[in-house]
């Protein structure tokens, strides 16, 4: 069933449009930076953007900083929200279930497919932005400023190319994990309604609420448990040494959201009348 879900996901034009849009954003930003050479003032603008002008191979990190706060979660919410509700709306849900595909199996396959989508999306962004960075800014011009070759970590120590690749892999994995909470929220809502749009909007509403509460001092007691609280902790992979505390907490929170919401989705979906 997982294979079936992957075929449906990967043969769907809409999915590739979303991936293409995600990849296009960093390219647009790179074009502006490369043609003007005006770096954002220190402390403002996206993470890594100033550093990128010196070394294009850091651009994937800058690109992730651009897509993680809004664009990527929107795409994940749309794909996951479509999970059950989209099948209900096209009427294919009833035909899948009488194949028969068990309801639990279908839900698990949907979640796996969304996870694959997140990985495909993040890897596509990383790959295209790496190429964009090299083309627009070149690699390793740092040597010109008198440093030995190689990228500098956020903490100032130099990183070897192998070290950078490893940290990038860690960051990609962490970003993917951060998105699973959104996916679980959207998939849960998707079992409640027959409207894919409704499920996606519901999940986005939850995220916006979370992001607003995260900036509100009055909400200090709930802050550590908000799904978006540790979204940007992937940046900590680029510190030297890697700063694990927030990464671990972020992964833990996502695991709890996934477990609770998938259980709720299952409890609802397995006992529901399918009238679509």
């Amino acid at each position, binding site marked *: 069933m997982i294979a079936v879900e992957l075929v*449906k996901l990967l043969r769907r034009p809409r999915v590739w449009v979303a991936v293409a849009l995600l990849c296009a954003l960093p390219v647009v930003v790179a074009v502006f930076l490369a043609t003007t050479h005006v770096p954002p003032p220190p402390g403002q603008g996206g993470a890594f953007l100033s550093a990128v002008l010196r070394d294009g191979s850091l651009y994937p990190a800058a690109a992730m900083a651009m897509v993680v706060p809004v664009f990527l979660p929107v795409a994940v919410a749309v794909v996951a929200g479509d999970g059950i509700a989209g099948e209900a709306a096209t009427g294919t849900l*009833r*035909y899948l279930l*009488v194949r*028969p595909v068990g309801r639990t199996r279908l839900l698990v396959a949907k979640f796996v497919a969304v996870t694959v989508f997140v990985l495909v999306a993040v890897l596509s962004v990383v790959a295209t932005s790496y190429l964009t960075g090299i083309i627009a800014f070149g690699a390793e011009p740092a040597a010109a400023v008198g440093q030995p070759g190689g990228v500098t970590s956020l903490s100032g120590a130099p990183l070897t190319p192998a070290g950078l690749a490893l940290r990038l892999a860690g960051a990609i994995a962490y970003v993917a994990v951060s998105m699973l909470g959104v996916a679980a929220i959207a998939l849960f809502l998707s079992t409640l309604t027959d409207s894919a749009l409704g499920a996606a909007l519901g999940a986005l509403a939850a995220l916006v609420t979370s992001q607003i509460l995260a900036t509100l001092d009055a909400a200090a007691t709930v802050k550590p448990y908000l799904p978006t609280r540790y979204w940007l902790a992937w940046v900590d992979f680029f510190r030297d040494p890697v700063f694990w505390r927030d990464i671990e907490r972020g992964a833990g929170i996502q695991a709890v959201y996934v477990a609770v919401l998938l259980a709720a989705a299952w409890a609802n979906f397995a006992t529901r*009348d*399918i*009238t679509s």
Partner: protein
Amino acid sequence: MITTSALTKRFGSVVAIDGVDLEVRDGDRYGLVGPNGSGKTTLVRMLLGLVYATSGKIEVLGRPVPKQVAEVLPDIGALIEGPAAYPYLSGRSNLALFDAAGRGGSRRTRRARVEAALERVGLAGIDRRPVRAYSLGMRQRLGLAAALLRSPRLLILDEPSNGLDPRGIREIRDLLVELNEAGTTVFMSSHLLFEVEALCTRVGVVDQGRLVVQDELAALRAPTGRVVVDTPDAERAAALLDGRVEERTGQRLVVREDDPARLNARLVADGVRVAHVAAEHRSLEQLVLDLTSASSDTAAAP
């Protein structure tokens, strides 16, 4: 094949299915008829484990539903409230996906199954166009192909001829008769009564969630004990059969009489020309109209 006892389903305060005792036997071509909103589709969904009963029991192919529905579904082909497919994929890809979602078979047998199903419903030559571009009739055929993929022992078809043109209706009817003669039990719902009359051997009539009649079609359509005569000499015939003519409109007489042959011989012997003579049967349409209330489509003033 299908047995339900005292099956009841409530959606909130609405009683959709009310104490239904359905019985579909092995080899039947069973037609379920009734007005829109009478509960036909809900009943079909309950038989397939999509909608859960409030009370009562369902047994399909000898197993309790929904408890063991996963064991019987591989032997059932279903069309539920119209066909459905992924609009961005071709018909062939859709069938391959639906087939892959079920258990069993190598890549080659799966492909052969898809081709055989397309062939059966007259879609063997479809191209790679996405289903989005299909006509209503093609979608209906594709839905039937999906139902036939696993050579089911039982077909549960909700409005199988929906969206088809007269030739298509005829083709599908012939296909269902052929499958039935090869051993497949057919349970279908329809509001096209001529369709049910032409195809089915057994009929159930649903109204407001209740099964008001369930019998052999032949029994339901038993002669009424009257004979319809069409004659240009209506005047003379009426005089001859004085007292037994119950209705007379133009050349058409309705006569109390069991045997049309005897009546014909009598009229002809007296020189009455007879254009047509036949025993009167109750039509399924009349039966359904007599037994059911207004369709839920209407909203008459109270």
